[in-house]
């Protein structure tokens, strides 16, 4: 089905059949709506004023938000999530920058193996990572300790940071760093005066996405949170096991909102980077 479909798309692009064009567009629009619809539905439902879930809602209200924010366990979960994500973000971005710089500028063998290892947390099932860390944490009394959850989240956030920063650092002409050195900078000076200003937008992106990775993470948190450090996704999980209720729509909308803000901020930063900091490796 997909094959003939795509063939139609090609056919359209080359011969311009009107009917096919309409069909193809309709299909793509349908698929895209399908992709976005579940998220939109959740957001709309969160503002429902009805007693049960009905779409579209007959009335609108903030009652689910009131219930959400009025519950101290949910409020604690927000606090936990923000604290853990904040720590993860600082931790992963800092370590990731150093590693990305080493990967881009370093001359050493086994770069491929190091890359595969650093990206492995993206591939290894999160259940496995989570249980491994839980096994160690339960022995050392680290369950429910927020900084430790942040360190664990940094494991899965690090690859994200690495990918973003490596591509940003590759766009920095090594001659700019040489120029800074010849004009009197030590390593720190090169970093502060040249490398950091040129990669700042990417550092912001990396920080945003590492924050988001932690903020949305469920698997590791589920094992490590205990009762003391429940994050938002963990509380959603625990609630969902009981019932699908609209309060969760309000919580979900908060998470979606954070994602949207992070994506918009990243978009803004990318616009800035494209405008102000051209790829300097492409020569004059």
């Amino acid at each position, binding site marked *: 089905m997909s094959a003939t479909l795509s063939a139609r798309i090609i056919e359209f692009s080359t011969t311009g059949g009107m009917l096919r064009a309409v069909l193809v567009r309709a299909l793509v629009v349908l698929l*895209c709506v399908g992709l976005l619809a579940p998220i939109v539905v959740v957001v709309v439902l969160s503002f429902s004023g009805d007693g049960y879930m009905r779409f579209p809602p007959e009335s609108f209200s903030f009652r689910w938000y009131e219930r959400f924010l009025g519950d101290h366990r949910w409020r604690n979960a927000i606090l936990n999530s923000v604290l853990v994500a904040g720590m993860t973000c600082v931790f992963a971005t800092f370590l990731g920058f150093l590693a990305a710089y080493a990967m881009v500028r370093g001359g050493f063998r086994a770069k491929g193996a190091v890359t595969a290892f650093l990206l492995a947390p993206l591939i290894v099932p999160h*259940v496995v990572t989570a249980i*491994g860390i839980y*096994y160690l944490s339960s022995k050392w009394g680290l369950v429910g300790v927020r900084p430790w959850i942040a360190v664990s989240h940094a494991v899965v956030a*690090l690859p994200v940071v690495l990918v973003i920063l490596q591509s940003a650092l590759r766009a920095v002409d090594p001659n700019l760093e040489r120029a800074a050195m010849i004009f009197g900078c030590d390593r720190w000076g090169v970093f502060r005066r040249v490398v950091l200003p040129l990669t700042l937008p990417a550092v912001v992106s990396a920080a945003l996405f590492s924050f988001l990775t932690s903020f*949305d993470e469920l698997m590791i948190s589920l094992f490590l949170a205990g009762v003391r450090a429940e994050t938002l996704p963990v509380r959603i*999980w625990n609630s969902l096991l009981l019932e699908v209720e609209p309060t969760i729509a309000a919580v979900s909308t908060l998470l979606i909102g954070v994602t949207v803000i992070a994506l918009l901020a990243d978009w803004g930063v990318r616009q800035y980077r494209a405008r102000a900091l051209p790829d300097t490796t492409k020569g004059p």
Partner: protein
Amino acid sequence: MPLGRLGAFLLLGPSLLLLVLVFLVPIGWFITGALGELGSFADIREEAVAVLGSRAVLGAILNTNWIAFLVTVMVLLIGYPVAYALTRAKGIAFTLILVCIILPYFTSVIVRTYAWMVLLGRNGLINQALLALGIVDAPLDLMYNRLGVVIGMTYVLLPYMVLTLYSAMKAVDPRLLQAAEGMGASPLRVFLKVFLPLTLHGVIAGALIVFILGIGFFITPALMGGPSDIMIAMLIEREIELTQNWPTAALMTLVLLAVTLSLYAVYQRFANQTEGLAP
């Protein structure tokens, strides 16, 4: 300014240390420690045969592969046209399609799963609509069964496929298609003989990554599946949460890890870039 070997090591050190201490060692320790509880190597082997040969585990392994396969096929069928549309789209259309892929991609898996639970539940929006329109008389079972799992996982994994395919399709020189067209090939032939072969490595890479992520899935099947949709990751979690049976969990983890890592090694051959995995 190139770094010396020492400089590179010092900068990589903290990250490597993090991954070794909070990733490699814990997983390794969990597996060896839990298996060690069983005693000698012979005991472990005996236990392995018993555990991996049990109906529950065999069933879960079968389920896992079958569900991951179904999801991969679904994701490919939906992802291919969307990726193609994204490749061809310009301006505002491009942005809109991209938003439809990126926004779900970066939304928490638990939120995305919840959204489908709202839609597919017995009193969910789809059943409400179907009942209201008189299409069905009684609510359909769209969730807590295999259908629900496949729908939910397809939704969660779709962006990986689209982004991988997109980077493969973007690399195809459109002039090649025009040339084939100019030589009189029918659109179907152009697709089958030129475009598909040129994007096949993307299809394989995308299918592998979706399958790899699929067999390790936990959240969506746990929330949307029924009693007969137990996947291996869920079984591992249950062994620990409910029965504290670490050795059995370790054996199953070993199997899951081995399959994942070997597929990843194959994936590496097809994907020369990691951009498909992260922003």
